[in-house]
């Protein structure tokens, strides 16, 4: 049967029609080889637009389809489905992108129209040579890997577990809980962070469907959607988790010091035991301690052994080693969270040099009732500050560091003001650029703070110094800032300054992203499948994201995204099977001479050499269709389906002809 191509030109309202002469394009397309009909429509993606194509296929008028409209990344799936519904193999369809890469980016109508013609001719010529491909389905392993045990990972794991699905939760720290476990109160409702988080942590620890691997890191991920092979390194705790009952005798007696016990109040800031054998905080899940080998006396000189002596259950084992555990899952949720910006490089803020300049996370710990200050706000020398400045946007909204807004700082800064007022009623200054109080109850919280005698100064802090100019500044930290509402540079002497350090991508995120084959944006965070319509999926099927690994987020948004990710996983698991890439590579055994050039090219190890036949073979279940092997094959024995040489050659000829 000869090729009869239908070309459908979309106006996209005026998005395309405003810049591309549709009539001219239609006339042009009519003249192309193998094109039997050309239609234009306001919105091809609308129901009536889709029906046009479906009907033409059903009426037998066409057996191949070209839609000239937006980007294939936008609607390829839509139109492929139309083909399928009409009874046409979806791979006999091509999209010509005359919007994102044509009408939206060029000005001159004549040249934009010419380009649209070229793109359409390329699509038509390629479509003539396209071949139907069979869809392939693979079963989905119903078990899910959640990487990261902060609030995002906890929520996602619990949602899945509650639905009766097995989850492996991997956390690199000794306990789950993440950043949230370090907070005292949460904005804007001022719930006690521990009160709302701890029950969830306990549920995770006890849930029959959750296998918790704390103090563990994902080492390798192979496979593909529905069938990932995961290798996790269970770091050694030197404590046998099966024997330990978390009694605490070991850390009570341990003479080692992980967190300095000398120094000023700020240097000693911590939550949880400061000993070498420790749990990170008292509500830790699991409540099984870890020995910090770097500071443990036993590991330094072999002379200690107190923890083993005091342990009634003989759970301490100094010879324990890392374990590699391999298992299979069907889906992965990345929930690795964030790290806070280190303000040391901003020299003019004096962090690390000036006593009483703190980061936000240090201030959180100071406020935490179970922390080293017992929740009391103290200066380095232990006295109570009379005045505190809160500097916004440190490392965020700053071209030198992170251009983005960290989204949580304004609100936690307001929370600090409230806590300060409540606890010590000190004088508080908020130095802000803009106050961004966008969430539910946030603006109201700001409003409340305005009534709590907090001084708001609109301006970016220029410098924090201890060099006084006036008498009143002596022995104080002086914040120099342009108060943009007054139009004056002010110097404000204060006792303590809190830097609202922004959120940034965790340093391990790039590695995790690499293991999962998902991309990282220039901000360092994972790129979601679609910024609006695919916020929890990624470009790799079966890999989802939750929380601050995607972008800075507050707790409500993180929990919402975590639940969305688990629901996406559930919908996939419920289908039991999933379609995988049909456009894979395949080897023509009659042509392959077994030169083995392709053998090392496949990142997924999908190419193996068949010794018996003397040819290389592609395992299509592992192949993701990148086509690198086809490009490297010296004898043209490997074809990249749907991106074959002849198809791309036709596209080149077409794109240059008009």
């Amino acid at each position, binding site marked *: 049967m000869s090729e009869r191509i239908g070309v459908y030109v979309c106006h996209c309202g005026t998005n395309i029609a405003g810049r591309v002469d549709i009539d001219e394009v239609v006339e042009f397309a009519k003249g192309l080889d193998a094109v039997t009909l050309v239609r234009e429509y306001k919105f091809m993606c609308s129901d009536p637009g889709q029906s046009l194509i479906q009907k033409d296929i059903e009426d037998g008028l066409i057996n191949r389809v070209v839609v000239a409209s937006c980007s*294939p990344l936008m609607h390829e799936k839509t139109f492929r489905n139309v083909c399928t519904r009409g009874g046409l193999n979806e791979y006999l369809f091509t999209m010509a992108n005359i919007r994102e890469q044509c009408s939206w980016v060029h000005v001159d109508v004549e040249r934009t129209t010419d380009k649209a013609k070229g793109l359409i001719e390329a699509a038509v010529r390629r479509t003539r040579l396209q071949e139907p491909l069979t869809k392939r389905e693979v079963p989905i392993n119903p078990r899910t890997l959640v990487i990261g045990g902060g609030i995002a990972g906890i929520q996602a794991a619990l949602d899945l577990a509650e639905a009766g699905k097995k989850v492996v939760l991997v956390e690199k720290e000794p306990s789950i809980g993440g950043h949230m476990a370090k907070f005292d109160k949460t904005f804007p409702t001022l719930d006690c962070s521990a009160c709302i988080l701890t029950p969830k942590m306990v549920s995770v620890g006890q849930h029959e469907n959750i296998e918790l691997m704390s103090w563990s890191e994902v080492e390798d991920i192979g496979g593909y959607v529905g069938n990932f092979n995961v290798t996790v390194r269970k770091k050694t705790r030197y404590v046998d988790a099966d024997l330990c009952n978390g009694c605490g005798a070991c850390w009570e007696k341990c003479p080692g010091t992980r967190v300095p016990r000398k120094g000023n109040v700020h240097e000693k800031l911590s939550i949880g035991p400061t000993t070498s054998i420790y749990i990170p905080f008292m509500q830790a899940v699991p409540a099984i301690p870890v020995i910090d080998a770097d500071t443990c006396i036993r590991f330094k000189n072999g002379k200690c052994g107190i923890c083993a002596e005091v342990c009634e259950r003989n759970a301490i084992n100094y010879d324990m080693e890392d374990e590699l555990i391999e298992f299979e899952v069907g889906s992965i949720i990345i929930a690795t969270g964030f790290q806070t910006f280190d303000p040391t490089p901003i020299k003019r803020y004096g962090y690390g040099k000036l006593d009483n300049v703190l980061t936000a996370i240090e201030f959180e710990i100071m406020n935490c009732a179970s922390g080293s200050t017992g929740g009391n706000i103290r200066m380095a020398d232990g006295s109570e500050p009379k005045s505190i400045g809160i500097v916004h946007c440190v490392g965020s909204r700053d071209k030198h560091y992170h251009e983005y807004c960290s989204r949580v700082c304004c609100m936690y800064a307001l929370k600090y003001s409230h806590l300060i007022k409540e606890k010590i009623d000190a004088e508080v200054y908020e130095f802000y650029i803009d106050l961004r109080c966008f969430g539910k109850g946030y603006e109201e919280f700001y409003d409340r703070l305005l009534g709590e005698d907090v001084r708001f100064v609109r301006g970016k802090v220029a410098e924090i110094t201890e060099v006084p100019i006036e008498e009143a500044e002596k022995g104080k930290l002086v914040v120099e800032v342009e108060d943009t509402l007054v139009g004056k540079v002010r110097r404000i002497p204060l006792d303590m300054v809190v830097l609202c350090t922004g959120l940034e991508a965790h340093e391990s995120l790039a590695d995790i992203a690499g293991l999962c084959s998902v*991309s990282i944006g220039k901000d360092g965070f994972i790129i979601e499948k679609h910024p609006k319509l695919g916020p929890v999926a990624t470009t790799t099927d079966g890999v989802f994201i939750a929380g601050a690994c995607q972008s800075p987020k507050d707790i409500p948004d993180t929990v919402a995204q975590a639940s969305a990710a688990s629901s996406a996983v559930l919908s996939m698991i419920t289908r039991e099977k999933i379609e995988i890439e049909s456009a894979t590579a395949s080897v023509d055994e009659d042509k392959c001479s077994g030169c083995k050039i392709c053998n090392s090219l496949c990142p997924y190890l999908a190419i193996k050499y068949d010794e018996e036949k003397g040819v290389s073979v592609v395992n299509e279940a592992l192949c993701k269709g990148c*086509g690198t092997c086809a*490009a490297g094959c010296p004898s043209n024995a490997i074809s*990249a389906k749907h991106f074959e*040489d002849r198809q791309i050659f036709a596209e080149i000829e077409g794109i240059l002809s008009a």
Partner: protein
Amino acid sequence: MTFEPKIVGFLCNWCSYTGADLAGTARIKYAPNIRSIRVMCSGRIEPTFIMKALYEGADGVLIAGCHPGDCHYQEGNYKALRRHRLLKRILHEYGVEPERVRLEWVAASEGERFAKIVDEFTDQIRELGPLGIKDSLAEAMKDDIDPHEADKEESGVANEA
């Protein structure tokens, strides 16, 4: 009339094509001289495609893939880089300025950068002038005829120009 170069782009689906789309979504204007072909990975791009594009009339070819380390398929872009480095070494022997073939890394978030690269590259090629491989081939062969040919009858196949 100023010379308007024809540029063929080979863009990887995940980073560069997405980045080019982003330029569209953000309505960043750039020269219409580029016409792009989408491949899944820059690792799919064969030097043969580039030669073919040059032969078919492209004055310049832009290859774009994910930044090193960011390849959706892990390492395809390194293969693209190596092929590019080797291809660049031979182009001048064909009388093709190596600058006519350009490799760039464009991330999915770099719509603006994509637009800038296209504009810059277009200007650069405009400066170099038309490549005109087919015209040049015809020119090089125009005297490759038998001086007596005119007297004789034509045989089966004519010269391919």
